[in-house]
């Protein structure tokens, strides 16, 4: 156990040579008096999948919202592709290429499916994704484009929400609770599309409560508990027991979590 942090350090230091698209440094964030993020640091390499896991209330959504600019952190920095974006507004970050699929999907309820997709093109960032490409990938959307988005099933809504975010042609896609409330088969199919989506070099940062699903796709991950990182590294480096301990805080001595 004592060896692990060193291992994590080495792993974290190594990709610094390749391109780190996102660097989060000592991020702290509050909800009123509550400290929801307590010095979280990690880096995400370009073109990879990074997963954040953790129990309810661990601060995962707060982390995602802070990266997307919806929540002002009280301390720390967010660096995107070498630029400090901590002070930028959400729309400015979208223009730089960060899109968040928020927890609960948040489609525009009174807009049709197609209108929801079209809102994704608001900033007109050029890139691979166009509405035609989306329809090509998900033909059912074309058939149901005039339906109100609130009539879709959960999985369909999640797919539309991801597509809406993709239409902004982001370089970094944040997805908060991809599988929330979805049937396992739907989750698998969405994860299946995800690998196709990433072919163009997209970086994905996902938040998941479904630990196995997340760890099966992620190159690196971190586990959070009460606003702190309790474990970080490559999924293969840890036994399920270690991950479970970090997840539930069973062994909450500070020696477990990585120092990066």
């Amino acid at each position: 156990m004592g060896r692990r942090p060193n291992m994590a350090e080495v792993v974290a230091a190594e990709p610094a040579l390749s391109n780190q698209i996102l660097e989060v440094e000592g991020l702290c964030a509050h909800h009123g008096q509550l400290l929801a993020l307590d010095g979280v640091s990690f880096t995400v390499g370009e073109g990879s999948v990074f997963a954040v896991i953790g129990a309810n209330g661990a601060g995962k959504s707060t982390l995602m919202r802070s990266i997307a600019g919806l929540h002002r952190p009280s301390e720390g920095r967010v660096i995107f592709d070498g630029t400090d974006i901590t002070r930028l507004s959400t729309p400015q970050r979208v223009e730089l290429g960060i899109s968040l699929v928020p927890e609960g999907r948040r489609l525009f309820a009174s807009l049709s499916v197609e209108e929801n997709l079209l809102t994704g093109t608001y900033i007109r960032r050029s890139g691979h994704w166009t509405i035609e490409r989306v329809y090509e990938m998900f033909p059912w959307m074309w058939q149901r484009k005039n339906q109100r988005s609130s009539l879709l099933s959960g999985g369909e809504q999640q797919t539309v929400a991801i597509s809406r975010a993709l239409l902004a042609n982001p370089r970094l896609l944040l997805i908060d609770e991809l599988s929330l409330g979805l049937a396992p088969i739907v989750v698998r199919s969405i994860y299946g599309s995800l690998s196709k989506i990433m072919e163009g070099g997209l970086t994905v940062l996902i938040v998941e409560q479904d630990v196995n699903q997340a760890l099966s796709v992620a190159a690196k991950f971190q586990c959070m508990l009460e606003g702190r990182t309790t474990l970080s590294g490559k999924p293969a480096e840890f036994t399920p027991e270690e991950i479970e301990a970090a997840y539930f805080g069973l062994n909450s001595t500070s020696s477990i979590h990585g120092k990066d």
Partner: protein
Amino acid sequence: MLNAIIQGILLGGLVVLFACGLSLLFGVMGVINLAHGDIAVAAAYVAVAIVPVLHIPAIWIFAIVVPLFMVAGYIVQRLLIQPSLNSGPLTTLLVTFGLSVIIENLLLEIFSANSHSLAIGSLASSAFKLSSQISIAYLSLLILVVSIVVVAGVQLGLYRTRTGRIIRAVADDREAAELIGADYRHIFGIAAGLAFGTVALAGLSLAMYSQVDPSSGPDYLIFGFEAVVIGGLGSLWGTFAGGIVLGIATTIGLFLSANFGALAPHIVFLLVLALRPQGFFPKKVAV
């Protein structure tokens, strides 16, 4: 009776033009603009002030005043309403109420309490007869047509254009709208610009149609509001119907006495509120 209905319909157009901006602001940002009527009156006074200076026909005034108020709407939104929104929904009410009082007194100081109207030559007085008892003023008809065109245009704009789509998206969920790159404050500004533009148009029409004085703003606000409630929140065609109902109530009330003419529309409104608070054509989603 038929005459009352016809006059009511003609008046309904003007009311819906007033109410259009009111429900737009409420639908998009949940703001009730208590200065709405005063903005209409202010537009009329700006027109009254610039007509003699510029020596242009009154119709051209529209091309100047309406854009001017659209810009003013954007600025007022960004400078006053947005910061007040940040400090709570009640603050916005109080701030717009303050604006209402300030505008009214500014007009009073600058133009005195006398009422004014926009001179538009022969159009103001010419009318055609439908029957021996019913005559329709060209101006009223024109205003009705313009109102319908404008309201339909706003609807089309909201449902058919890129900006309209984003306005509706922001109305649904402003955070989600930020996540697709829309600065909701800018979008709010645009909505406020639209609202100010339409109400300025209403104010100008009103000044041609009858007279305005600095303290008449609240009356128009109340009329527009009553039409909105009677018609059902968030439905512009419902508002149109509400405006017609108010117009008819006024005309019929006037049959009985002048006092009752003034009271009748309010009584109709209170009755609707008591018996059918959701209005007659409620819509699930605002805008």
